[in-house]
């Protein structure tokens, strides 16, 4: 059954902007992206919104809905009270371009700074063999759809613009973890650079990245904390460090 929904949409650009109130029809089963499209079609023809798959898999329609970083295409209007006003804003950790569209290029720059997978020299393409239990940890991180909600909610950069130059963010910590746990990756010093170049030590484990991940990746428990523990192995645990010098141990690279 259709009803009218009270919506507040932030409109503007990097110079100025404000929340604007609209009322729009909403039907049973619709998601926030549906009503934004209806507003765009009926009331605000020039409303900028980024979207693509409408299935929670492309990561394009990231925005903040009632202050929480979410995918608009996966947020049911019915999750809110019928009298409740739904407030929609762009991601607040990134520069705004127009209306609900932000400039997320920070993330692509950080992606380029992460050293790529290093294949063993002795294995020709096609010769690599891996057992499932050796790759399943990394596979969890491959579910990432790069919506950057975790980056948006991370207070290290959300609340401190100046940290952007030295902090890669949770999305890229799972990338580093994925590679460091990869059974065939041969790049050394991935842990050291995670700590010293990508800002792993700045994370204070408040788990907001995990809370907002639409793919339910356990970013903190399965990637960031294990990487912090691996850093402890090489930097803050003299017994482990000494052991690695006496006898080469797996994992200490």
């Amino acid at each position, binding site marked *: 059954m259709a009803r009218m929904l009270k919506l507040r949409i932030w409109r503007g650009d990097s110079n100025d902007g404000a929340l604007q109130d609209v009322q729009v029809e909403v039907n049973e089963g619709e998601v926030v992206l549906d009503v934004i499209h209806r507003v765009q079609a009926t009331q605000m023809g020039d409303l900028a919104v980024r979207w693509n798959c409408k299935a929670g898999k492309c990561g394009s329609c990231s925005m*903040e809905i009632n202050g929480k970083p979410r995918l608009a295409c996966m947020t049911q209007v019915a999750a809110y009270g019928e009298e409740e006003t739904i407030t929609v804003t762009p991601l607040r*950790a990134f520069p705004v371009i127009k209306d609900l569209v932000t400039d997320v290029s920070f993330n692509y720059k950080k992606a380029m700074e992460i050293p790529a997978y290093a294949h063993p020299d002795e294995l020709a393409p096609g010769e690599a063999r891996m*057992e499932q239990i050796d790759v399943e940890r990394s596979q969890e991180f491959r579910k990432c759809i790069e919506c950057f909600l975790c980056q948006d909610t991370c207070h290290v950069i959300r609340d401190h613009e100046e*940290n952007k130059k030295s902090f890669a963010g949770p999305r890229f910590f799972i990338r580093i973890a994925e590679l460091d746990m990869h*059974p065939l990756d041969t790049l050394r010093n991935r842990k050291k650079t995670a700590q010293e170049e990508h800002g792993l030590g700045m994370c204070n484990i*408040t788990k907001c990245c995990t809370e*907002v991940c639409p793919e339910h990746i356990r970013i903190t428990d399965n990637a960031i904390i294990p990487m912090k*523990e691996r850093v402890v192995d090489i*930097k*803050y645990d003299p017994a482990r460090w000494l052991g690695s010098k006496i006898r080469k141990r797996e994992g200490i690279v």
Partner: protein
Amino acid sequence: MSGVFSPSRAKIKERTLRTDKWWLQPAITFGVLFSFVIYATFRAFENKYYFAEPLISPFYSPCLSASCEPGTALAIFGQPFNNQYFGIGISPALFILIFPLGFRMTCYYYRKAYYRAFWLSPPACAVAEPHTKYTGETRAPLILQNSHRWFFYAGLVFNLILTWDTILAFRNAEKEWGHMSVGTLVFLFSTTMLWLYSLSCHTCRHTLGGRLKHFSKHPVRYKAWTFVSALNHKHPTFAWISLFGVAGADIYVRAVASGAITNFYFF
């Protein structure tokens, strides 16, 4: 102007637009943790009512000071500390509490809890924090959070000691074996929760197998890692329950030792 109020970001004056009760969880965490700190500090300095044969408070075990009550010494450690230094009397609890305290302070779960509730960094997800600068755990003193591993090892030793205390709780006040009291159940619960809290710890998970690159080469460690990973999902729950368990054990011992209640024996 920094953070969400940076010039390039959407001009929104509110620190957060969240409409749910985001403040409730940090407020509860603050209240409970602060209450525990107050109680634990009081008990650590009280220096009495910590032993009622066969029960010794977990806040005072092992009792390592010459001032400890008779019957509290563990043969393996003895009682190497004096009851005062520089003319100042020191409670036996103060010699040992740094270890369980350090384990909890550096615990990955408690870090989340108190960074949010006490330091407001951030108070909740997508709620702007009040601090103008942030360096995380890269500098002193917070870089000391990396010592969690060492406190974990110390915590295991304490778990063994408290397990022994629990075994001793199967004696009666005359030191005869084969008895069981309400105190025995209180200690059993407290110690079991402490073990679950320690075994579900992220450092335990890493040490047992998380640091490996090839699980397939280490099937036993893989099984151990899998088991601890399952426990790890409940780590926050065990963290809270074990905190209440230890406090409960201490409150019970205090009540018995002070004569407020009698330790009821089932047999």
